[in-house]
């Protein structure tokens, strides 16, 4: 699986989503599943998936699906689709 696929899978599993829901509009609080409780669970799954430890500032800055790419890149996760 590519990093992008892994990332997508975390959202699909944590928030019970279809792949089509993974877009610009997927932001914190845009669905009932993505509240503070869901956020914490999702962060934990991301950390396990990519074997990283996300810093506090990044946890609270992780405000959207798109923003997540940017944040994970800081931890050396590459999403280039080549």
């Amino acid at each position, binding site marked *: 699986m590519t990093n992008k696929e892994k990332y997508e899978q975390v959202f699909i599993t944590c928030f019970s989503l279809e792949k089509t829901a993974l877009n610009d509009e997927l932001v914190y609080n845009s669905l009932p599943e993505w509240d503070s*409780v869901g956020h914490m669970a999702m962060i934990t799954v991301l950390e396990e998936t990519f074997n990283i430890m996300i810093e*506090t500032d990044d946890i609270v800055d992780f405000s959207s699906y798109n923003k997540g790419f940017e944040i994970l890149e800081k931890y050396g996760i590459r999403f280039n689709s080549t």
Partner: protein
Amino acid sequence: MDFFNCIDMYGEAVAVIAEDSEQISYKEFLLIADEIKKHLYERSLVFCICGNNIESIAGYIGFLRGSVVPLLVNMHTNKEALKNLLRLYLPRYVWLPKSMNEDISDCEPVYYYGNYVLLKTSFTSSYSLHDDLALLLTTSGSTGSPKFVRQSYKNIMSNANSISEYLKINDKDRYITTMPMSYTYGLSIINSSLLKGASICLTNKTLMEKEFWRLLKEHNVTSFGGVPYIYEMLKRLRFSRMDLPSLRTLTQAGGRLDKELSLEFATICRDKGIRFFVMYGQTEATARMSYLPPEYAILKAGSIGIAIPGGKFRLQDENGNTINESETIGELVYEGDNVTMGYSNDCKDLCKGDENRGILKTGDIAKRDNDGFYYIVGRKKRFLKIFGNRVNLDEVESMLKTAGYECACDGTDDGMKIFITLKDSPKEVKHYIIENTGINQVGFSVICVPKIPRNNSGKVLYSALQCYGGSLV
């Protein structure tokens, strides 16, 4: 005098800070509150659809000052549940966000303030309100249960007084909201802060959002409260490494914080010079019944502490006899002026007087140590606390049964297990439960079993269910 009538004296001091950072003085705040109340008849019932915003809190205080009885409903309550509550309680007015206006049919707008509108409903009230009745609060806020707690003016005043006394709240304090105001713990923070001229920074942002921490720093917030799950989040956010110099007091209630986490926060707070209060309460006792003084937070970690000023605890055995020995388990019974009048299930119950007479059997099983500190060890009633929400297991079972699912519910706080049979889809059940409780799915696991084990008379054998474990669906 009731607190909401004596806070005028704080004049120019800041009462609330709105989410856009506008600071509103007590004087301005009470002008807003009193303007709202002018548009309602005294001793009428109003549904106050709350969020952590200036409109809700000004409405609430205005209603109390105008002898109008508010029933607080969280603005995220699902539409069907709200409709059901309207049908059962027939309120004369509804105070709600303009955006929800169309959810209420047959009514006439009588006043607007900010993003809120006051609607006069078409219900013809054929019920009366008891003179002592001040406020109606839900016990769960989640299952859409019509069961509300009837709180009197004396209850609210007495509890706000006790809380502000042991927390030593003063006009230098500044709270930030971390819970909905329709939730008893959230509301008690608002009441006890206003009583002492402290200020409240209003936000619907959560600890998982950058904006929350920005507000906390910008407004030099001194205190906030949290249910156990908030402490899990704080731990996850490595609170120990955060630099928050204005923070002086943290409180915890809304469910049992496990001993380890309690000890961890007691230690972190000691090192940071923050007072850490573990507390215990129920909506049936207005809010608060006990607190653990911060100087004992480490030594007595895991304890709910001692009764609040003006209150008394005792333990009772199965025959109703008081247990005098320490380290002996019994039902925790509380006595005090904050024990509420009783429950209501619809508007016909609102004429009822005080049914509890100052005594509350908490339904919690506890023990007392040799130094007089209390510890909760179990529960008599079948309910769980999920992210601070009280969720009655039998209510969930009957809700699911009505929806056509055969099931049995069990589990632990923050982890309900719903056992269903192979004929039903776990995904569907999970969807149904989150839709109807508004609680995050992380709090539930659905487990398929071949058959719900029952005894000869059809009662579910919960102990037999435990062998099915909890593989997540």
